[in-house]
Every structure is written in C-alpha cells, then in structure tokens.
C-alpha cells in the first residue's frame, strides 16, 4: 500500500456526484401555476380567435356564467340536490360494499360464492342498467341513489376484501393466541388493519360516484349538476357545460380532500 499522506491533495480528483433524483416531492404552487397557464392560454386563444368558439368557450365567459348561476340562486339548488344524491348513494354503496367485502375476506363460502359474482358485475357499465333501475326503483330519487350506490359498491367490495386479505396474519394469530373472541379480532384487528386499503378504495369509489352522478341525472332530473351539464350539452352551450364540469371537478377535489383529512386522522399510526 502506498503512503497516502505523502501525496498532495492536488493529485486527487473530486469524486463526481451521481446520486440524487428519483424522489419527487410535492410542490403545491406548481399545480396552480399549470392551471393558471392553461386557462390563460385558452383565454388568449379564444380572444385572438385561433381557438374557435366552437372548440372551446372563453374561460372568462365560463366565469361569468358561473357568477350568473350563483346569483340566480340555482347553483345551490343544483348543488344541493346533487350532493344529496351523491352522499346518500355513495353512503349506501360504500357501507354495503365494506360489509360484503369484509364478509368475503373472512368466510370461505361467501368468498367462493360472491367473488365470481362481483367479478361479473364489476365491468358492467352501470349506465347501461339505468333503464332497469328506473323500472325497479322508479324515475324519482330511488333510481339515482341505486345507480350511484351500485357504482360505488363494486370497487369498494374489491378494495375491502383485498385490504382484509392483506391484514398481517400474525396479528390475527396473535389475537387468537391471547384468546380474543372472533368479534374482537374482526373489530380490533381486521378492520383497523384493513382501513388503509378501504380508504384508498373509497377514494376511487367516490370519484366513480361523481362520474355516475351525471349518468344518474340523465333520467328524469330537472335539477342537479349532472342535469345542468346534460342540458348544456344538448343545447351545445359550452359556457354552461364548462361551468358544470368545473363544479364537478371542484366536487372531486373536495371529496378527495375530505378523505385525505380522514386518512390523516384515522391512519396517523402509519409513518
């Protein structure tokens, strides 16, 4: 071995850095900047004319339409009815979905019996069943709740039983080895253990609920954000169409935010 102390530092080269990257961090303002940029492009394009009125409405006109909707008081009529449908439908679908998912996760016969059924109904476009729902549940609110509930049910079931399957079996063995009752094990080990999976499933389910809201309001709805969008679409009124779409997007952001809050509260134990 050579004597390193006899060599001067000028003999050495600095080791070049080749690490770093591959670790995206959240930079909140970038998202806003991208939105603002896209909107400005659209505004500029529609004003200067290289985006035709047929292609895209002026963002400023959409804002005006939104303001008019707010001032007429109809915004809250639409929003109230839609939120009601969304909340009731999604609550029914999610609660039944979680219950069935847990049962599938726990019992062999229920699993063998229901998993193929769920697999069969998952890919059905729920919109296609709308006429059937109208016959079953009537043209009023019933069919709308049913459609949204059905649409949220299947992804919730799949997410839930997947989450139950993923609960650490050693925790369950531990519960058994301490003589915990079946119900205690389900309540205190399986459910909290499955909660992260269930909540991330609910994120998807609720997004689907918002998508289905428009479909649900296709039939027999006079008011509601979906009905408003459909009417705007059939009248080819792009300003109203976009105003409605923006409301739906905001609704999606809101729902996602709510689940985020719940996750932080309920899943604080995760690192």
């Amino acid at each position, binding site marked *: 071995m050579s004597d390193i102390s006899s060599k001067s530092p000028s003999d050495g080269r600095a080791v070049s850095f080749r690490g770093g990257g591959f670790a995206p961090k959240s930079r909140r303002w970038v998202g806003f900047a991208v939105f603002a940029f896209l909107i400005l492009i659209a505004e500029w394009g529609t004003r200067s004319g290289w985006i035709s009125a047929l292609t895209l409405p002026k963002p400023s006109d959409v804002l005006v339409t939104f303001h008019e909707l707010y001032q007429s008081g109809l915004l809250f009529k639409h929003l109230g009815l839609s939120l009601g449908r969304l909340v009731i439908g999604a609550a029914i679908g999610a609660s039944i979905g979680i219950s069935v998912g847990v049962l599938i996760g726990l019992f062999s016969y229920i699993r063998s019996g229901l998993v193929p059924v769920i697999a069969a109904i998952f890919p059905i476009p729920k919109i296609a069943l709308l006429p059937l729902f109208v016959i079953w549940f009537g043209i009023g609110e019933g069919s709308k709740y049913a459609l949204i509930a059905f649409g949220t049910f299947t992804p919730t079931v799949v997410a839930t039983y997947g989450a139950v399957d993923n609960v650490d079996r*050693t925790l369950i063995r531990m519960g058994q*080895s*301490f003589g*915990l009752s079946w119900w205690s094990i389900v309540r205190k080990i399986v459910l909290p253990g499955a909660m992260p999976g269930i909540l991330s499933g609910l994120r998807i389910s609720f997004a689907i609920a918002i998508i289905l809201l428009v479909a649900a309001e296709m039939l027999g709805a006079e008011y509601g954000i979906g009905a408003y969008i459909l009417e705007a679409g059939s009248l080819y009124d792009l300003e109203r169409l976009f105003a409605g779409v923006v409301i739906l997007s905001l609704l999606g952001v809101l729902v996602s935010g709510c689940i985020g809050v719940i996750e932080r509260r309920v899943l604080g134990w*995760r690192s």
Partner: protein
Amino acid sequence: MDIRLDGVGHSYGDAEVMRDITLDIASGQIVCIVGPSGCGKSTLLRFIGGLERPDHGRILQIGTPPEGCLNPLTYVFQDFALLPWRSVFGNISLVLEDHGIRGKTAKAIIDDVLARTKLTDFASALPRQLSGGMKQRVAIARALAVKPAVMLMDEPLSALDSQTRELLMDDLVDLWTRQPFTAVYVTHNLAEAVRLGHKVVVLSRRPGQIREIVDIDKPLGDREFGDADLEAHQKHLWQLMRDEARAADAELLHV
C-alpha cells in the same frame, strides 16, 4: 402447571415433519428447543399453544393454571405482532379487554408489567416510534399481563441485532429471577439456548425427532456472557447439530 408432549408426530401432505416427540415441561423452567431449519421447532410450539393440531400424539396440561391466570398458554412472537394503530398501553390493554378488565384494574396491571419491562415512560408511544428491542419488550409485557402459566416464545430475539439481543437476554433473566415463569423457548441460536435454558432439547433434521436433552444446572442468574462452562455446553450442542444442519441445508437445496 406442567405440559406433557406424548408421542407427537405430524406430516404436511407427504412430508413428515416430526416424529414421536415426548417431552415434559416442568413448571418454573425454561425449556429451549434448538434444531436445524425445517425441523419443525415452530410447528411444535404451535401445537403446544393450540394454534395447530398434530396428526399423532397428545399435548396435555397437567395440573391447573395458577390463580389469576387469564391465558395459560401465551405466545411471544418473533416479529412482535404489535398492533401498529395502538399505543404501547393500548396493545397491552387489548388482551385484557376481552376478559372484561378495564379502567383502573387494567391500568394497575399494565403499569405493573410496564414497570417490570422498564417501559413505564413509553406507555403512550406508537410501535413505529420504538426500536426493535423495545417492541419485543412490549410484546413480553403484553404476555406477562395475562399472567400466563407457560410462555411460548418463538425465536423472540431473532429479529434483533446482537447487542439488543444480549440486553434482552439480561432482561429475561432478571424477569425470571424476580418471578420464575415457565417457558418453551424456540431458537436456532445456541448462545441464547445455553444462556436461558434449564433444559435444551436438540431436534434432528426433518422429520424432527429428539436427538438429546441437555440439562444445564447453573442458575440463570449466575450465567454470564462468555462463561467457560456455557461455552462447553454450546460446543457440545453444536457438535450434535452440525451434521444435522449440514444435511438439512443440502436437503433444502435438493427440494
């Protein structure tokens, strides 16, 4: 309360994993079970704990569990098995809740076991905030809370680094010295076996059979890291196991 294994044997499908194991576990003693991988040490422990049923033979409890015992056969798991969403206190309270022990009574028990495992200051910590050694002490505290007749310890120190392992062995010895408990202690680490075992049971490779039972008479409290007589026991055990371990290793490769 004693435990007696009477001609226990078992197969998984065509593969016989253990054969004709007969063993007495006396009250107040720690019995270590060592053997090469795949010899059925952990399976044997699950039989004793009633989590699995053997094909042949019986496992008997002799005598009645001591007064106030909530869960006679209590496990300590290799990977701790703590609920990550419950605090240290909550994890221990979990095993008391089903026995209707809540409130003040529960707090008294939990405070006692936390003090015995030197965890008093960490009662409200979540598992993710604890080191591996502390997690295993929580698991031991939890086991102590139900006043077990026999502790079934499945490689409890294997997931820990060697320094933590030494510290925890000292803790276990302290615990036993202050209040002797009965334990079946499965390990593949011979140093642990000679340090903690009153009896060391050596199992052969698959199908697991008892090769030899080594009694170590030196009191637990007097045993120390690097004791010459313990080294001798350990050497003897290793000689017993070496060929078995090598054959078992080759066997696994051929599977």
